[in-house]
């Protein structure tokens, strides 16, 4: 891109909600361009205003269709919206087919809605590495609500809890019985459970099963997850869905949000550190002779990987002249 290269100008564009600037900024973050960190540092102070809603659930539960209905209902209430829809990257070719917009066509020319499709680029957990930072961009751009739709998630894809303030698990009738509902993972992260396709047979049974499973929880939680039935097809229950989100938001504002923010801040810090450690320390160590020696010794079973790692780190802490002496 040639016309907007200056980071400052780009960031100003984001603050003014300019779509071109938002789009370019998200791409730069996604592509891990050198300016990405600078951009995040410039926008971070203006974030923390949006309500971030995570929508997760198995493939085919109707997440995208439900997101469209949710967004339309929120638009009726004059809320501005950013949507990040994540779909999987092929682990074999690195390519991705991003099809969530097909279900959101009514939103595509609404000035108050910004939709971005994002491939996981093989990040585990149901989100892309860049999802959280892209949400920061939309937040800084002044969106009232940000909806993050995860990939069609399995039982243990729960990364969305680290990003969203309100987590919605979307299920559909016929996906499993009360035994499935007791299992760990996704069933533990929902603040709101929506049984979509509520127009179908067995929808009430699914609601009962989920409620029963949640009743078994012995965990002390000040928020009791809401379970409701909706149909993205007919529009039934969408009003109630929005009310539930509002209820959860009101609950968060009475103190829980601060706790959640602090926990999320810690997660963000740990993740940033992990990235830095991998990228700086490992890359640095790799260039030294000690690295090769260490791998050779491990593969020859002369030393175990944990002790070798300790040695490398000890050496890293010393001045450079000692390098390569010990492996």
């Amino acid at each position, binding site marked *: *891109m*040639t*016309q907007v290269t200056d980071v400052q100008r780009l960031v100003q564009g984001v603050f003014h909600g300019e*779509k*071109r600037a*938002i*789009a*370019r900024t*998200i*791409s730069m973050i*996604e*592509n*891990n*361009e*050198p300016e*990405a*960190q600078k951009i995040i540092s410039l926008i971070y102070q203006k974030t923390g205003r949006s309500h971030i809603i995570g929508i997760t659930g198995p493939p085919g539960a109707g997440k995208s269709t439900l997101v469209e209905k949710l967004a339309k209902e929120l638009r009726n209430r004059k809320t501005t919206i950013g949507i990040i829809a994540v779909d999987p*990257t*092929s682990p074999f*070719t*690195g*390519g*991705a*087919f*991003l*099809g969530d*917009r*097909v*279900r959101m*066509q009514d939103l*595509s*020319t609404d000035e108050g809605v*910004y*939709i*971005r*499709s994002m*491939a996981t*680029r093989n990040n585990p957990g149901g989100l892309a590495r860049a999802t959280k930072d892209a949400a920061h961009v939309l937040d800084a751009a002044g969106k009232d609500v940000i909806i993050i739709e995860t990939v069609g998630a399995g039982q243990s894809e729960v990364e969305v809890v680290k990003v969203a303030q309100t987590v919605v698990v979307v299920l559909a009738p016929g996906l499993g019985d009360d035994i499935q509902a007791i299992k760990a993972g996704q069933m533990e992260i929902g603040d709101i459970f929506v049984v979509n396709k509520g127009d179908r047979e067995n929808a009430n049974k699914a609601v009962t099963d989920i409620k029963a499973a949640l009743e078994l929880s012995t965990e002390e939680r000040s928020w009791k997850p809401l379970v409701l039935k909706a149909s993205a097809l007919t529009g039934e229950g969408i009003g109630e869905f929005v009310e539930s989100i509002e209820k959860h938001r009101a609950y968060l504002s009475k103190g829980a949000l601060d706790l959640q923010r602090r926990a999320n801040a810690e997660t963000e810090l740990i993740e940033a550190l992990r*990235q830095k450690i991998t*990228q700086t320390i490992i*890359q640095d160590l790799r260039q030294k002779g000690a690295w090769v020696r260490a791998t050779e010794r491990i593969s020859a079973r002369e030393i175990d990987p944990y002790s070798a790692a300790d040695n490398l780190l000890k050496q890293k802490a010393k001045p450079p002249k000692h390098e390569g002496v010990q492996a």
Partner: protein
Amino acid sequence: MSKKEKKIRVLIAKPGLDSHDRGAKIVARALRDAGMEVIYTGLRQTPEQIAETALQEDVDVIGLSILSGAHPTLFPRIMQLLKKKGMTDVMVFAGGIIPEEDIPALKKAGIKEVFGPGTPTSTLIEYVRNNVSK
């Protein structure tokens, strides 16, 4: 953050009122398998929807698939809207049922290439890789 992870982002769009998207899906799938990130719009998109989607998704390439014969009206309109939104560096190609004699006018309007039925997907992939401007 040091390792760059640039991918070619492609929008495959179906302007106009025909409902045949087998070609569009084959192209989308082939580009996906070539390692690109392909966004599919679904059927019956207006030029406004296509240009707006391209903007929000920050795509490098747009592929337009049409079989209805409305390309002489719709394609120039899409190109105009892209220009208006500042997306002058996005590469646009087209496919579907497009008569030979219509092609010069479409190219003049900014469509970079037109592919007819029977084009091998490998030709297309190579074309996209070689002509993406970013």
